């Protein structure tokens, strides 16, 4: 890597020649405000907040995209620079609805932060405001263009990273709007509901469909037995909503908070993850032995499932027929658990706390119900749960740790792995390899499938078989892998696909970190670290060793892949046209 000598605000420094001014300034300890910038995702120099003076240049330059060069001299804090930033910010604010007090992003808004930091006291250039549209017809995502500042992070995410491409800029100039083709509502376009657009939105123009009212209402209904389950990724992220460092494990506090909110039982979706491994592992072994359709592709990620239904209908037979873990859990709660507790399944209300917006759509799928009774009644994202905790006046950080409730409270470390990319694969290998070989694995840390590389591959000896596996995360990577499988370039037995980059820890329902943090800290890695710690500290680390799972099969499902389990734990998929 070649180094260049540059000067920023009079300070000389040496930086790699691949740096932008923004990166170099960070090293020099100089803070340059940004708004549209999101490292590696949206580097388009559009918002002009990061303008700086570059010696020899007629106009101000955007630091986020301006490459350094030998001898470059930059000033980031001159009267002209400060004035230009302020004027631009006032212009943006003049066309923003500024209803901060009732905005879902109040106190976590990058525009609000900048406004404070740039000392905006007055908006001098008031004028016509763009009349936006509110689209709340999707069960997962709400768009409100009157708050949109046209930074285009959502567009870059949807188009370049996820390759879903259902939103883009339309019209020009002052009438520019980020919207769908023909302004259709999101529920009528091939949106995967992954919510990554929300996760990158600096303001409140994109948000999840808030379902907290439904849950409050259920909790206050004495006729309902309201139970809650939490996905593995929630416990390693929700602390961020309460100011804790990224990657804090707050499982016990989270369980205690849920109990305080009034849920009758607090369960762990990890238990159902173990159940999924049993069902999916059996399905894999069956397909390998009986010559079924391969590769088998995981079905835990509802964003991926909808993406597949729209884009690769001919791959639907490759999908595992297993319901996703929380849906399995819902089905178990409304059958086995109901029977055991002597409660009418109709009176059991299942709430899932998920790192995911696509799960909201998934829970509404007709096929994920039993006799008209949905397996899961409502899905809340991590963010919505945090809002309920705050609303209830619970001091989250001062809570004492509590345990998940029995009789479904135990889970293996394998189950918790589902929260990170590669986790399903690692959990499956632990079980499948041991079943196929009949021997215990010496090493159950399958490092090849961990980490944030886009496409990961592993080969594992399982008895006589060399199990070929691939793991991808992010729909753009999924597209690449599926197309190479379709072209015959790649062959696998088992493929794990997660819709969100990094898997569930970085799901579209997780706490939102501003660009100034997530551009420089890899949220996926930090949160996944906590997931792997949770697994490491677990007493049981193999799904098939979970006593509850054994009990479930003994008492109810008989064996994995049984008639009963197919009735309750498996589903089917339907091809969907690109535009409906």
């Amino acid at each position: 890597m070649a180094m260049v000598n540059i000067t920023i605000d009079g300070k000389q420094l040496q930086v790699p020649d691949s740096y932008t001014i923004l990166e170099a300034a960070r090293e020099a300890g100089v803070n340059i405000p940004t708004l549209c910038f999101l490292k590696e995702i949206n580097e388009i120099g559009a918002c002009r907040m990061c303008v700086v003076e570059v010696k020899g240049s007629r106009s101000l330059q955007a630091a986020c995209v301006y490459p350094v060069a030998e001898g470059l001299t930059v000033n980031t804090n001159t009267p002209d620079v400060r004035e230009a930033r302020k004027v631009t910010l006032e212009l943006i604010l003049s066309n923003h609805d500024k209803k901060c007090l009732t905005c879902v992003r109040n106190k976590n808004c990058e525009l609000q932060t900048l406004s404070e930091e740039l000392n905006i006291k007055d908006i001098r250039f008031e004028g016509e405001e763009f009349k936006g549209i509110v689209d709340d017809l999707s069960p997962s995502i709400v768009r409100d263009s009157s708050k949109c500042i046209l930074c285009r992070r959502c567009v870059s995410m949807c188009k370049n990273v996820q390759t879903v491409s259902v939103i883009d800029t339309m019209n020009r100039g002052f009438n520019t709007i980020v919207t769908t083709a023909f302004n259709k509502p999101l529920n009528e376009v091939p949106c995967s509901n992954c919510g990554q657009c929300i996760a990158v939105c600096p303001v409140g123009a994109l948000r999840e469909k808030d379902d907290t009212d439904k849950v409050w209402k259920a909790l206050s209904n004495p006729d309902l037995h309201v139970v809650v389950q939490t996905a593995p990724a929630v416990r390693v992220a929700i602390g961020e909503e309460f100011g804790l460092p990224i990657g804090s494990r707050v499982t016990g506090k989270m369980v205690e908070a849920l109990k305080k909110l009034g849920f009758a039982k607090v369960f762990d979706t990890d238990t159902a993850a173990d159940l999924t491994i049993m069902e999916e592992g059996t399905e894999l072994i069956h397909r390998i032995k009986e010559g079924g359709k391969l590769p088998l592709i995981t079905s835990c990620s509802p964003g991926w499932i909808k993406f597949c239904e729209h884009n690769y209908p001919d791959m639907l037979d490759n999908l595992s027929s297993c319901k996703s873990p929380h849906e399995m859990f819902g089905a178990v709660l409304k059958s086995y658990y109901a029977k055991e507790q002597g409660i009418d399944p109709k009176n059991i209300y299942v709430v899932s706390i998920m790192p995911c917006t696509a799960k909201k759509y998934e829970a509404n799928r007709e096929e994920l119900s039993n006799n008209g009774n949905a397996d899961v009644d409502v899905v809340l994202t991590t963010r919505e749960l945090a809002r309920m905790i705050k609303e209830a006046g619970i001091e989250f950080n001062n809570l004492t740790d509590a345990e998940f409730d029995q009789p479904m409270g135990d889970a293996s470390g394998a189950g918790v792995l589902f929260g990170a990319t590669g986790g399903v694969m690692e959990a499956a290998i632990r079980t499948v390899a041991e079943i196929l070989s009949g021997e215990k694995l010496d090493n159950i840390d399958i490092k090849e499938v961990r980490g944030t590389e886009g496409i990961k591959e592993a080969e594992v000896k399982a008895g006589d078989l060399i199990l070929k596996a691939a793991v991808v995360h992010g729909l753009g990577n999924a597209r690449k892998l599926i197309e190479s499988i379709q072209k015959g370039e790649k062959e696998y037995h088992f493929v794990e696909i997660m819709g969100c980059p990094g898997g569930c820890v970085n799901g579209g329902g997780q706490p939102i970190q501003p660009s100034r943090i997530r551009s420089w800290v890899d949220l996926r890695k930090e949160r996944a670290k906590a997931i792997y710690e949770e697994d490491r500290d677990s007493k049981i680390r193999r799904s098939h060793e979970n006593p509850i799972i054994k009990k479930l099969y003994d008492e109810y499902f008989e064996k994995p892949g049984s008639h009963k389990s197919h009735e309750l734990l498996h589903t089917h998929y339907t091809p969907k046209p690109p535009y409906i």
Partner: protein
Amino acid sequence: MHFLYRSHVMVCGGTGCTSSNSEKIRAELDTKLEEYGLQDEIKVFKTGCFGLCAEGPIMMVYPEGAMYTMVKVEDVDEIVREHLLYGRPVKRLLAGDKEHMDITKALDSVAFFNKQMRVALRNCGKINPECIDEYIAFDGYKALEKVLTQMKPQEVIDEVNKSGLRGRGGGGFPTGLKWSFAARQVGDQKYVCCNADEGDPGAFMDRSVLEGDPHSVIEAMTIAGYAIGSNQGYVYVRAEYPIAVKRLDIAIKQAREYGLLGKNILESGFDFDIEIRLGAGAFVCGEETALMTSIEGHRGEPRPRPPFPAVKGLWQKPTILNNVETYANIPVIFLKGADWFSSIGTEKSKGTKVFALGGKINNVGLVEVPMGTTLREIVYDIGGGIPKGKKFKAAQTGGPSGGCIPAEHLDTPIDYDSLIQLGSMMGSGGLIVMDEDTCMVDIAKFFLEFTVDESCGKCPPCRIGTKRMLEILTRITEGKGTEEDIEKLEVLAKNIKASALCGLGQTSPNPILSTLKYFKDEYIAHVRDKKCPAGVCKSMLHYEINPEKCKSCGICAKVCPASCIKGEKKVPYVIDTDKCLKCGACMQKCPFGAISKV
């Protein structure tokens, strides 16, 4: 074969003359020539633009060099009979000195022509643009032959450098330097692009070159390809130029047929081809990075520079982009030499520049003059001055990105640098003349309306800032402005110029800045005295009848569409100003000059 004819009649087929019926005139000529049995003696051609668009349709008869203007279909019979059959030119339709003894000299004494120097437009109006042979007959492709057979790529670049040619599209960047940047890049693929997305309101020089001399652009792009090591060119031309697109398409096909495009051109081993890409008419697509983004098939929006196109342009490959007029100069530089070219013009601006004259000027049209010609010469000598003897107030150059030049600078020799110094810019060469009846605030508003419409919406300074400036200007012209509004305009203009993403955004405040610079008193009159000195801004003026001059004839009351003028015999008429629409009809019709704008 063309040379067997005794006379050639050239009818302008440019967009201007086409829209004033030149196609029908050509058809009528063919009919009449046959009627008089002259079809084997006299040949009719369609040519490119002669420049005198206000006088169209234009017809030229060679070898005499007689130019007929404002020809009507009904005139054709007379011209054919009198001029082409009996040899007696139809004087009443002749341009120039109608009484001159020698028709061939008739145009020489006319300033519109004799002060011009046609380099880029050299073939416009001279050749049939749909015939490659005619281009070749006028030394076409000779420069390419010279370049491919006698010169090394570096020598080509050196020659362009030496000529001092600067980009004619707006920025005035040295063309040779641009080429050398791209030539220096190492890569398997480079591109040569031509910007024919002419978008300045009123500018049409690029269209005229493409319509009148498309081969010159093809030849120049091929030379550029050889110089930088590219074998693929793209012409990005707006779809609103159907005639230009059609002729360019014909020219490209002919050049391929003749082996002047394609593989192994002139047995030199050099391959080059050109494709046309149609633009949808977005002004911003004339900006180089937006143009390339659009060619790539994306929404036409600029991207930040650096990296510059010479390093990462079209599809991230080294690319040069020049505009049509720049290319049109290239073959001449190689035919006549860089020294000849650089002998024309000023110290830092060499060669000629084509201007599209518009607004309050008698000779609306296209003119080409050596750099350094003064504004006065262009407006008064070539342009024929201002209609109705009105006073010159300002000239707007550079389109929406340019600025206004007031009367006190009429004698400034015009080149890239002098215009920048005056707070305007060359732009693509639009030159709009304004007379004393023009309100400068209103003019600034007009250009801002254009910029607001054409902003791509990518960066807030342009997307929101131009909108806010327009809102302020609208307030001012409606008599609702304050002095604080002028200050706000100044703050916005300064900061949009400094921080917008692309050249278009950065120059969008120029019409405001230059009118504020030279005509601030007009702004102040609007906000402080609520008066529009030029009497343009309707909300600040009203019409009055001078009772002493009024003869109570009642004509004003009859023409008033709002029926707001009342009066009776022997009593002066009165306007009800609350109901008045300020249309001015009464003032125009009053035979006694009793009505005035106040």
